[in-house]
């Protein structure tokens, strides 16, 4: 048998022909990318290898092999899977709570009845905040490293495999491959191959007649054909897309801002803050309900100002956020606000705002808001009966004020005041102007989100390419028999692409038909 110039699928198989060494999908040349090379010229036989000092290069080599190993990738995926399972099954402490030791201790106490003696262990293992635990992040970093290493490792392989299609298998491949067929054709091998090439091209294959083979091999002329040769890059795109999604998530978490408690009382201009220079004014808020009481619509009519100049106006609903200059406003909650004006003894206005009653009392009977007047070292809690609740002490058109001096835990005074009647408490005069609605918004700027979408696009496109446009190759050899008759030998690998088989059969049938019409040879039949 003649020697081939390039390594060929069959020759790369281990002698046993078990066929388990492939790395790429359907890639017969898996392992040879980085075959371990002898570390030193061994003057002595075996023992030398064992005693060779382990150098920095060896460590790097080991690391590289570790990260490009598919097994490593698989184990990392499974570990991540286990962690997400834990994070799904176990209660997770809310993020803002985990930064506050006292609140977190309280939260731990609240889950103690559920987890008993395990609470301590689960807490120490970070499983109450699985997705922010160092070992979840660590696994993600390892997986990312593995994906990047694998991609770096595979890109040249794919380029070799798809870019140099003349790889020609030895003759034995045509007797051993997973898919093969023999078709008797006319006497001329060149013509027969041309016919095969034509048929394959008609089936959208790229067909390359291997020129060197004809002269060099005693056995005949060869042809290589493939389809969707760019599809293997889909695998790279998908894997790197996943990494890009992770990068986006990292960017989301480390830059931008998210304010989930932004409140805009209707009619008042509110500073957005976070260095945006934006002000927001809610002109109206409407909540609508179905007959059965289920919510139907929450709509805020919002006007946005950039440094005092109106730049946007939109009705924001739950699925219709307002976006301007990278900052987005999402409808999130709503409630009642009390418009309260405060003046001091000299009739100076200390505060004129609508206090959003955004908290509920523990018994759920009252809505509470907080008004802070820093200069006056005074805090005021504004209390109204919660929606649907009745408190005989606070009538319609009234609001209860609890005035606290800074640092004090007992109120200086608690008083119910009526709408439009200025009332002086502890030196300040409070006027309850009217009840207003407020709309609660999530305000966020997330520079990472576009990376997430871009990565997702790569991920999806890549996955679809890999699975729905399978890269397929086949080889054709034209052999001349002892009596001058020519046979076409088709061969392809079957490993992990069993769906190729029906297509291969169809190709063989087409080729048989083509051969039968172009020559007058006897009825053809596939044989081993």
């Amino acid at each position, binding site marked *: 048998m003649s020697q081939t110039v390039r390594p060929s699928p069959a020759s790369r198989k281990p002698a046993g022909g*078990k066929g388990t060494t492939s790395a790429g999908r359907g890639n017969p040349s898996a392992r040879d990318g980085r075959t371990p090379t002898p570390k030193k010229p061994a003057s002595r036989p075996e023992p030398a290898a064992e005693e060779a000092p382990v150098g920095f290069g060896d460590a790097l080599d080991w690391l590289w092999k570790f990260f490009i190993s598919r097994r490593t990738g698989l184990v990392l*995926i499974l570990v991540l899977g286990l962690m997400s399972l834990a994070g799904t099954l176990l209660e997770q402490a809310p993020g803002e709570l985990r930064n506050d030791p006292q609140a977190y201790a309280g939260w731990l106490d609240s889950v103690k009845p559920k987890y008993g003696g395990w609470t301590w262990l689960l807490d120490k293992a970070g499983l109450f905040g699985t997705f922010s635990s160092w070992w979840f992040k660590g696994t993600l970093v390892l997986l990312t490293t593995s994906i990047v290493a694998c991609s770096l490792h595979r890109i040249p392989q794919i380029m070799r495999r798809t870019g140099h299609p003349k790889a020609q298998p030895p003759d034995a491949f045509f007797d051993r491959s997973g898919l093969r067929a023999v078709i008797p054709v006319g006497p001329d091998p060149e013509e027969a191959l041309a016919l095969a090439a034509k048929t394959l091209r008609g089936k959208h294959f790229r067909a390359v007649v291997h020129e060197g083979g004809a002269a060099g091999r005693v056995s005949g002329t060869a042809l290589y054909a493939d389809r969707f040769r760019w599809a293997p890059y889909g695998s790279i795109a998908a894997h790197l897309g996943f990494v890009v999604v992770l990068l986006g998530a990292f960017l989301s978490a480390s830059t931008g801002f998210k304010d989930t408690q932004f409140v805009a009382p209707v009619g008042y201009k509110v500073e957005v803050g976070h260095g945006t220079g934006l002000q927001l004014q809610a002109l109206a808020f409407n909540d609508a309900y179905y007959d059965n009481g289920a919510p139907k619509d929450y709509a805020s009519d919002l006007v946005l100002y950039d440094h005092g100049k109106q730049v946007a106006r939109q009705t924001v609903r739950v699925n219709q956020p307002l976006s301007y200059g990278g900052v987005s406003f999402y409808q999130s909650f709503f409630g009642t606000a009390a418009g309260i004006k405060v003046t001091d003894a000299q009739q100076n206005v200390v505060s004129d705002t609508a206090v959003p009653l955004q908290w509920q009392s523990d018994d759920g009977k009252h809505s509470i808001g907080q008004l802070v007047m820093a200069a006056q070292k005074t805090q005021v809690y504004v209390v109204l009966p919660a929606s649907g609740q009745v408190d005989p002490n606070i009538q319609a058109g009234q609001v209860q004020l609890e005035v606290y001096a800074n640092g004090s835990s007992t109120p200086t005074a608690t008083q119910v005041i009526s709408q439009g009647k200025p009332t002086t408490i502890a030196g300040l005069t409070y006027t309850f102007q009217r009840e207003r609605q407020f709309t609660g918004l999530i305000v966020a700027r997330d520079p990472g989100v576009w990376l997430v979408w871009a990565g997702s696009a790569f991920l*999806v496109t890549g996955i679809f390419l890999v699975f*729905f446009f399978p890269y397929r190759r086949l080889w054709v050899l034209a052999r001349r028999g002892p009596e001058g008759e020519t046979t076409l030998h088709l061969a392809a690998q079957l490993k992990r692409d069993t769906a190729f088989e029906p297509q291969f059969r169809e190709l063989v049938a087409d080729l048989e038909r083509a051969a039968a019409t172009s020559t007058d040879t006897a009825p053809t039949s596939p044989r081993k």
Partner: protein
Amino acid sequence: MLNWSQYCVEAATILLALALMSSIFVLAVNRGATRTPELVAAGGGGGSVALAERPQEVAPARGGLAVYGSWLTRLALAFLTTALVLRGIVTGHGPFANQYEFAVAFGWGIVAAFAFFEYRYRVRALGLLVLPVAGGLLLYAMTVGAKADPLVPALQNNLLLTVHVALAIIAYGAFSVACAAGALYLISPPEGRRWLPKPEKLDEIAYRAVVIAFPLMTLVIILGAVWAQIAWGTYWSWDPKETASLFTWLIYGAYLHARVVRGWRGRRANWLLMLGFAAVLFTFFGNLFFGGLHSYSGVAK
């Protein structure tokens, strides 16, 4: 029209039960009968079999009753399709508003995936495992009740959510077929069982099903993230439903990689399919387990 939709669901349930019975019966008959001799795959590298040696697609097992079984399944699929279409016309949105709608849709996905794979690969035995799951979901749907409530604000994103759910049910349906094929693979000894398709074939069917389902599942999660971004300003918030779907995705991702890792393909990979489908069911029913923590209805309150 809602009533008619529900009658269709009931009819489909009965048809599925009949299809299951016919499957069991055919299997019992086949089990006793001898198999037509087939060429046994000879040696060959890595179990690959030359074209000429490879037996043709397994012929449909027995005519008669088995064919009725297939048609019963297809009829059930037609009824379920009608049920979903009628309901969609009445409610004006896809089947994503409540557990009833999604359970029926899930059942549709399973029956559709099964019908497709049965037609394509002639493997009726899958029905033994798939049909009870589909039937169970439909029964569950009936216990939940077919009440059609109008959409709360968070769900008022008809196109996005309809696509999201449509892809999800196809993915879930294909995952259930993969699970059934994997389970049959796992109960088969290496040489196969007489009344079942060959293990390699089961393994392949499972893989084919995942190849369809996994890309769709990826899209489902991404579309869910898009919706979350539009509705709440966060594409991902580690909500239990999200983490459960992430778990599912990772398990099937692991499966796809396991098939190219030595020592993992075959049995271990197929065990991952069992785990994966458990995760699918868990993701589906997760709303119930975690109802108190987070529900997808009435968010903006």
